């Protein structure tokens, strides 16, 4: 179908959508509430063994030898395997990045451990207790090396290489230029500088990484049970690295207790377990413990943005030059420049700035590898809005006026950002204006001044979020990264009229079983109760790109809707034949094909389904039996949604503690499938952003030991810190996606990082405090306050 036809189709069907847009309770919650969810650790297979890993106590150390003898003698230990042995029958993962050195990663390291917690051997035993005892008995002869821990000095002379196969610890340094940047700076009245730095974080899903791998020696096939946000890509990688054909591997992602971008790649522990299951021909389970999760799963962020902004005295922003840094840790599960480049092209945020240059620097260090954590580009909104506030401060202008003046509105769109991204149907200035209309900023400034008299520090922050949700294949091509943005779905109307749906997206708690049922029910004139959704099993689901970013709605639900619309056409075709009416005059309502005009002429879908399967000779001439549709869909280059966040805080001037007093979100994610689920995404994302600004931090000491390895030290946001969050929706449909869906999920993190950080900055600004490094812990904040008071 052409784009125009598709939108006409959309227009026709929008009128009859009883379920899209409804706050339906989540279908999947029943099984969770009655305790009948089925998570990986709930899976037990007869004869199953358990794995545990020997981990490096050093941040950087050569492995002279590994002695497994004592462990092998322990009753109950079945096998102990090292990286060297695994390398004999598995292939390494090779991470390619255009224009940079590829990085290789073995199943387990062979010669060297690269961070404290790096797994170097695996013990397989009859139960986890024995496996852990076995781990204690494995003796590794280490030769400790100096650790590389500071990204800014990772490539200084004399610093050892973390990965000896690449030329430098500074893996990536590249510059991107758009427009006339030199001219902009030459014309500027002034250049304003600002810095924004985020700490190292980790995902902390309630369900840690888990796997059960079974090898069926009869069929010669591997079944891998484990959370997999991208089940099919995982299958391809597993098959490739184990020397199997892709039809010998089945990946099943059962119920998942949170992914947050952690459960995407094939990790080394899971891979080792799969390889060992094959080798031992025995099922093996491994469930990561919390210590492993915090120290050795995947980290994220640890990035820094410094900008120079060329401005005119009237507040016109002529150009921006940015220098971006990221500490990627020890290995590459993703192309090292992938995330920091997203920060690069998104850094101008909501503002119309034509001349732009950014340089990315990515260092490889002796820390747990970094990867994608919900809103990998979270820093951009804080940086783009924050730099505008710095400009206003230096020019003595009102920051909100200045932002407004440079901010994109609907009138400016379609708009192409300096780095070439198409912005369409974004209500940035509109949301900003609406937020300010409901918050009397002048009254607040008076209240703030009064409070200051009494020694109280209060502040407000407003964030303008541009959230890239759905990456099309064209984006992957243009970025030089391997990959596709397409998605796939299959919809089946069974002989009794029951509907089964599957797609390539994989749920990790988003409520897909409900929202997919809503879109399919609408397309087929049925009800969500009649639609069952199964995801995450590569035997059932078609090959798609899984769940990452915020692609689930526009890509995953978009394609399911299109597939259901194809099926609808067939149903109507059969209905037309049976009712002797043109198909165009028919519609499906409440599982019945009825005419648009004449009341009383109808045929139940159930009857149509029966004929399609059990009486195909009654079908129209030439029509094939059965009722199923399979569709793929490649979304546009890039789809965006947007939001405005407002946060009001009070900072305790004596302790540095921050209390969030008010939190309000204006979200515009286009057409909403289930606004309740979207609200939930906002609540969760804002909580994560609050955690990033106020609490969470992965810390290493000078030896490279992780000193935040328990949940008493890695502080998660709880209901103590997270306030009531008010959410309002604008629904400006995207003209290029099915149903105008834009999707959302990461934006709330961006918005909270920015609005909370700006609010705290606003609260301390009066005392001259400047906050550039997250998190704003009480002790840090008090330090800033005291320094600025005495300074």
């Amino acid at each position, binding site marked *: 179908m052409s784009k125009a036809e598709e939108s006409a189709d959309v227009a026709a069907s929008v009128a009859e959508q009883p379920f899209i847009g409804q706050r339906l309770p989540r279908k999947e919650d029943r099984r969770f509430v009655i305790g009948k969810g089925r998570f990986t650790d709930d899976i037990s297979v007869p004869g199953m063994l358990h794995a545990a890993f020997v981990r490096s106590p050093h941040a950087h150390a050569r492995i002279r030898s590994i002695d497994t003898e004592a462990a092998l003698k322990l009753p109950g230990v079945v096998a102990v395997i090292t990286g060297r042995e695994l390398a004999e029958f598995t292939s390494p993962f090779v991470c390619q990045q255009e224009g940079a050195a590829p990085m290789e990663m073995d199943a387990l390291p062979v010669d060297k451990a690269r961070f404290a917690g790096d797994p170097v051997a695996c013990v397989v035993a009859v139960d986890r207790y024995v496996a852990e005892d076995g781990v204690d008995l494995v003796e590794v002869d280490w030769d400790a090396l100096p650790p590389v821990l500071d990204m800014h000095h990772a490539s200084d002379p004399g610093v050892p290489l973390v990965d000896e196969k690449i030329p430098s610890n500074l893996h990536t340094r590249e510059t991107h230029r758009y427009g006339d940047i030199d001219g902009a700076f030459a014309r500027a009245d002034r250049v304003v500088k600002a810095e924004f730095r985020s700490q190292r974080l980790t995902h902390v899903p309630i369900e840690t990484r888990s796997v059960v791998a079974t090898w069926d020696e009869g069929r010669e096939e591997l079944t891998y049970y484990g959370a997999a946000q991208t089940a099919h890509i995982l299958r391809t990688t597993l098959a490739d690295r184990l020397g199997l054909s892709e039809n010998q591997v089945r990946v099943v992602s059962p119920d998942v207790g949170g992914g947050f971008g952690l459960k995407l790649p094939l990790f080394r522990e899971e891979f080792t377990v799969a390889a060992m299951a094959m080798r031992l021909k025995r099922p093996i389970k491994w469930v990561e413990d919390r210590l492993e999760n915090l120290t050795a799963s995947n980290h994220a962020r640890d990035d820094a943005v410094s900008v120079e902004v060329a401005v005119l005295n009237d507040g016109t922003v002529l150009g921006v030059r940015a220098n971006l840094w990221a500490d990627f840790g020890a290995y590459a599960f993703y192309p090292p420049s992938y995330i920091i480049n997203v920060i690069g092209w998104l850094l101008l945020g909501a503002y119309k700035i034509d001349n732009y240059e950014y340089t990315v620097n990515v260092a490889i260090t002796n820390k747990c590898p970094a990867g994608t954590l919900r809103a990998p580009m979270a820093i951009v909104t804080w940086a783009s809005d924050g730099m505008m506030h710095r400009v206003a401060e230096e020019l003595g202008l009102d920051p909100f006026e200045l932002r407004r003046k440079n901010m994109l509105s609907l009138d400016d769109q379609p708009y192409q950002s300096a780095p070439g991204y198409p912005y369409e149907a974004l209500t940035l200035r509109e949301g900003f204006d609406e937020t300010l209309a409901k918050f009397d900023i002048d009254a607040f400034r008076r209240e703030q001044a009064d409070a200051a008299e009494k020694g109280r520090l209060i502040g407000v922050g407003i964030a303008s979020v541009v959230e890239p949700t759905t990456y099309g294949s064209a984006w992957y091509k243009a970025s030089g990264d391997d990959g596709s943005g397409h998605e796939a779905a299959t919809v089946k109307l069974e002989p009794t009229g029951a509907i089964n749906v599957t797609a390539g997206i994989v749920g990790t708690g988003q409520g897909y079983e409900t929202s997919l049922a809503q879109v399919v029910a609408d397309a087929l004139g049925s009800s969500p109760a009649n639609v069952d959704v199964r995801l995450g099993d590569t035997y059932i689901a078609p090959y798609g790109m899984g769940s990452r970013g915020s692609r689930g709605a526009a890509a995953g639900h978009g394609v399911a809707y299109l597939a259901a619309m194809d099926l609808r056409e067939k149903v109507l075709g059969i209905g037309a034949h049976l009712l002797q009416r043109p198909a165009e005059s028919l519609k499906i309502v409440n599982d019945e094909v009825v005419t648009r005009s004449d009341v009383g002429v109808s045929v139940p879908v159930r009857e149509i389904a029966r004929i399609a399967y059990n009486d195909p000779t009654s079908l129209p001439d030439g029509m094939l039996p059965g009722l199923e549709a399979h569709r793929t869909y490649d979304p546009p280059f890039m789809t965006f949604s947007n939001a405005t966040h407002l946060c009001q805080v009070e900072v305790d001037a*004596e*302790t540095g503690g921050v209390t969030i007093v008010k939190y309000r979100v204006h979200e515009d994610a286009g057409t909403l499938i289930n606004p309740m689920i979207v609200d939930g995404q906002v609540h969760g994302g804002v909580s994560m952003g609050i955690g990033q600004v106020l609490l969470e*931090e992965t810390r290493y000491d000078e030896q490279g030991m992780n*000193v*935040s390895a328990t949940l008493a*030290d890695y502080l998660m946001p709880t209901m103590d810190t997270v306030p009531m969050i008010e959410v309002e929706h604008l629904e400006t449909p995207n003209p290029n996606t099915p149903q105008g869906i834009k999707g959302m999920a990461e934006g709330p993190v961006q918005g909270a990082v920015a609005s909370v950080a700006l609010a705290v900055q606003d609260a301390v600004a009066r005392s001259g405090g400047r906050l550039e490094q997250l998190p704003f812990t009480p*002790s840090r904040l008090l*330090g800033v306050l005291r320094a600025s008071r005495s300074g």
Partner: protein
Amino acid sequence: MYGFEYHKPSSLDEAAKLLADNEEASLIAGGHTLLPTMKQRLAAPSAIVDLGGIADLKGIREEGGNIVVGAITTHDAVAGSDVVQAKIPAMARLAGGIGDPQVRNRGTIGGSIANNDPAADYPAGLVGLGAIVRTNKREIPADDFFVALFETALEEGEIVKEVSFPVPEKAGYAKFHNPASRYAIVGVFVSRGPQGVRVAVTGAGPCVFRVKEMEDALSGNWSADALKGITVPEDELNADLHASAEYRAHLVGVMARRAVQAATA
């Protein structure tokens, strides 16, 4: 965790005998401190002697003008006790601010003080009120009970039976807590009563300590203002991820003032 024997005696004497007979035995009350260390294999007792079956150790009573709390009384029971709320509301609030509901419904006063975690709340309450710890062998004033980091005056085989708190005229507790565990980063308990004026600080140093200068100032003038400008030296204070020694020293002043402000009769 490694294997161990389990005993549940019904009297204090029986418990003492079990301790004497098993060299590597450990008492267990709520288990909220002991079990995690056993799970991490940091502790490996050969036998566990569970105090939970000794009825005498449980409960709160008034005795000669003092409030007596049995060793296996949970934090929740102290927080919810009518007597404690009426006579020493600051102590009820202290107990009600320990950890979370799970912790408060398992953790006991005896376990807490025997463990003497530098960040625990009760040590500040006991020292701040001048309480007496009664064991199966003797009475120990709180000032002498808490000796050093995780170290108390308890001898081998000695069991905490109960704690006797004098009822103060005024008492208050303020703490700045770790957001996850709610252990004190700094907690200050202040009181004025039969044991004079007391200011006891937990969380800040390796062990609970009193601040003489603050006590003197409050003796002359019971008000938060009287504490202005009084500082504690930071050199012996704790430093960790969440708070430097300097920050803790600062918080001692802030929490002491807030404790005085919160102090009720």
